[in-house]
């Protein structure tokens, strides 16, 4: 009898003892029963195709027995995911409670009230755990909307076996990359030289930002006016097009998103690949790659005479909270766990992602296990112009026109003119 009493009382005590500390930074909704298990929904895409999400959820649930996390799959590309989330949340849906969203969303999602301003609910000290610059990137008009989860940037993946066999150095300029790729193709070592993401979608904007910044160009000038019709931009676009016309890059690249580029590289058909962090572990996964042990990673090249390292577009994914959630305190506990040392270490070692938690990023043990992380300090980062609620249109003005030029439909010159015009429309009116 006494035993049963204790077994009922003790868990309740334990729960009530730990709940204030866990939710000190968040407004708690009174719950009728302390023992009740709450289920929250987390929408997230696959990360490196590994079992990372389930692994992390399992760990979180062990530490928080009163919360269950239900995983909801997101689409495999950022544009579709955004469309689904914005339709769901603007329609007032209370789920998903937490979602993984692109780093470029705070402007639009903050403006359209599709994400909760987390800085209103989490203490100031929470944000100290992140690597410099990340919190600013997740903010819009002074409020933080996303809790950074992993950082992404563009990298150059190359076949180290082929470069060694033909005595070629790792390219540090675009011109060098192009000529080395042509040499390897000429020796029939590979079918294609260099693959990247050139389809008409967000990923092309990322690729474009890298060449554009390398050539010294920009999308908007310092006073915020569209300024992409410049000699620098022309140099960047002409070079990208020349990759295709010279045969170094297959013309099919104008239909490539990440998976297609990855497949060609994993299939051993390309010497060089531009892709994100995950590509390293993806290329080393049994059953989906024929180039295991033959791949190395380097910073992206620069144009000759423009320094020794090129720019890499900043990407990455943040944890956002649905403003209509019915389980706010649980959602906040979940995102706090996901940026913790423990979760971020898993993220960095199981998947080759760059952790946003600064301590994990700097940990030499973690760096040893993640070759991408080891070179991240050498890259120059360039952000997309996403600090505007109109970013979707801005990006569309960029990628549709760059894609048309890559496909040879229009000249680089007129593509840039057209893009500049559409950028002006996108930022000024409610245009389509």
């Amino acid at each position, binding site marked *: 009898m006494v035993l049963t009493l204790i077994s009922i009382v003790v868990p309740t005590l334990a729960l009530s003892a730990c709940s204030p500390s866990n939710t000190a930074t968040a407004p708690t909704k009174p719950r009728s029963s302390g023992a009740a298990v709450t289920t929250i929904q987390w929408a997230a895409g696959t990360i490196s195709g590994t079992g990372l999400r389930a692994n992390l959820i399992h760990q979180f649930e062990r530490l928080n027995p009163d919360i269950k996390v239900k995983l909801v799959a997101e689409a495999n590309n950022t*544009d579709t995911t*955004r*469309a*689904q989330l*914005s*339709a769901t949340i*603007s329609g*007032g849906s209370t789920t998903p409670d937490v979602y993984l969203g692109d780093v470029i969303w705070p402007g*639009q999602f903050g*403006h*359209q*009230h*599709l994400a909760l301003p987390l800085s209103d609910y989490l203490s100031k000290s929470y944000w100290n755990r992140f690597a410099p610059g990340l919190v600013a990137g997740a903010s819009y008009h002074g409020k933080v909307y996303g809790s950074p989860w992993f950082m992404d940037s563009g990298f150059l993946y190359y076949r180290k076996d082929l470069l060694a066999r033909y005595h070629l150095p790792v390219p540090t300029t675009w011109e060098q990359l192009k000529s080395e790729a042509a040499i390897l193709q000429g020796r029939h070592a590979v079918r294609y030289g260099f693959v990247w993401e050139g*389809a*008409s*979608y967000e990923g092309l904007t990322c690729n474009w930002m890298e060449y554009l910044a390398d050539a010294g160009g920009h999308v908007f000038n310092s006073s915020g006016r569209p300024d992409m019709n410049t000699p620098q931009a022309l140099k960047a676009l002409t070079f990208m097009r020349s990759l295709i016309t010279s045969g170094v890059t*297959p*013309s*099919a690249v*104008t*239909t490539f998103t990440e998976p*297609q580029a990855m497949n*060609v590289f994993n299939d051993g*058909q390309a010497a060089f690949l531009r892709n994100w962090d995950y590509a390293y572990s993806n290329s080393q996964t049994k059953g989906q790659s024929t180039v295991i042990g033959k791949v190395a990673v380097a910073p992206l090249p620069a144009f000759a005479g423009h320094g020794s390292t090129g720019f890499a577009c900043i990407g990455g994914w943040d944890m956002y909270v649905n*403003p*209509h959630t019915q389980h706010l305190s649980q959602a906040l506990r979940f995102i706090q766990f996901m940026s913790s040392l423990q979760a971020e270490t898993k993220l960095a070692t199981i998947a080759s992602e760059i952790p946003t938690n600064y301590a994990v990023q700097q940990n030499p043990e973690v760096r040893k296990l993640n070759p991408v992380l080891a070179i991240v300090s050498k890259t120059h980062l360039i952000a997309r112009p996403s600090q505007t*609620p*109109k970013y*979707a*249109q801005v990006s*569309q003005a960029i990628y*549709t*026109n760059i*894609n*048309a030029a890559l*496909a*040879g*439909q*229009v000249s680089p010159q007129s593509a840039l003119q057209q893009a500049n015009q559409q950028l002006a429309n996108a930022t000024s*009116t*409610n*245009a*389509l």
Partner: protein
Amino acid sequence: MIAGYLMTAPALIVIALVTLFPIGYSIWMSLNTITSTYNGFQFSFNGLNNYVTVFQNSMFWQALWFTVTYAAVTVTLELVLGLLVALALNQPIRGRGLAIAVMLIPWTLITVISAQMWDYIYNGIYGVLNAILMSVHIINVPVLWLGSPVTATISMMVADIWKTTPFVTMIMLAGLQLIPSDLYEAAKIDGATGWRSFWNVTLPLLRPSIGLAALFRILQAFGLFDLPFVLTNGGPGTSTTPIAMLAYKAIFNDGNFGTGTAVAVATVGIVIILALLSLKALRTQVGEIE
């Protein structure tokens, strides 16, 4: 008479709720500037401003032109092919049931799935189509089917025709089976050969079915979305962006609910006119027969 209306009232009310309400709400949205807040949408009436924006935008006209061309080509070809297949299947041949079942497979597949399949077929690197054409030496280098506006449009049309011809065939086949066989006997007695009996008996009597198939197909073709969504995302550039995708991008990517619904409503207007025209054509044909 009144009893009849009363009996059908529940059904009519349900239909009105699920069709008229969304349509009315869309029209209302298209007349407002809409901002999304934590408490839902905030409307502020702006008259026809959204329509002015839409009609002044060259992208709208480009997407409309693409959709109209696409609808005209695919519907015409599907009607011709559907009729030919239906005529063949209307013959008392062996294994007809099996043939009909096999023919229906493309129609039963969900479009995003069959589109994914076509994406593999058309792929510029490992596509089946290129492999076949190269092995029989029709082409020497792989063609990037989805990489230029003309080939991408044609590729999409082929996938559409492959998928939807069975639907047209079924309507035509039903129409063919309704034609009384004594008419053909009479035609035979009058000395009409195969071609003449087709021209003077089959085709006129089949016109209601053709009109119906055309109506359905035009409506569907104007809603074109899934094929380009999977195959090209509207590219290269914006050359294969249909009107529905334009509305989708405006609403869900850009959050421009007002202009997006204005695109949708303007399109509905155009489609209703086309539908009324084909309905009218259909009615006169029915009248002629009676």
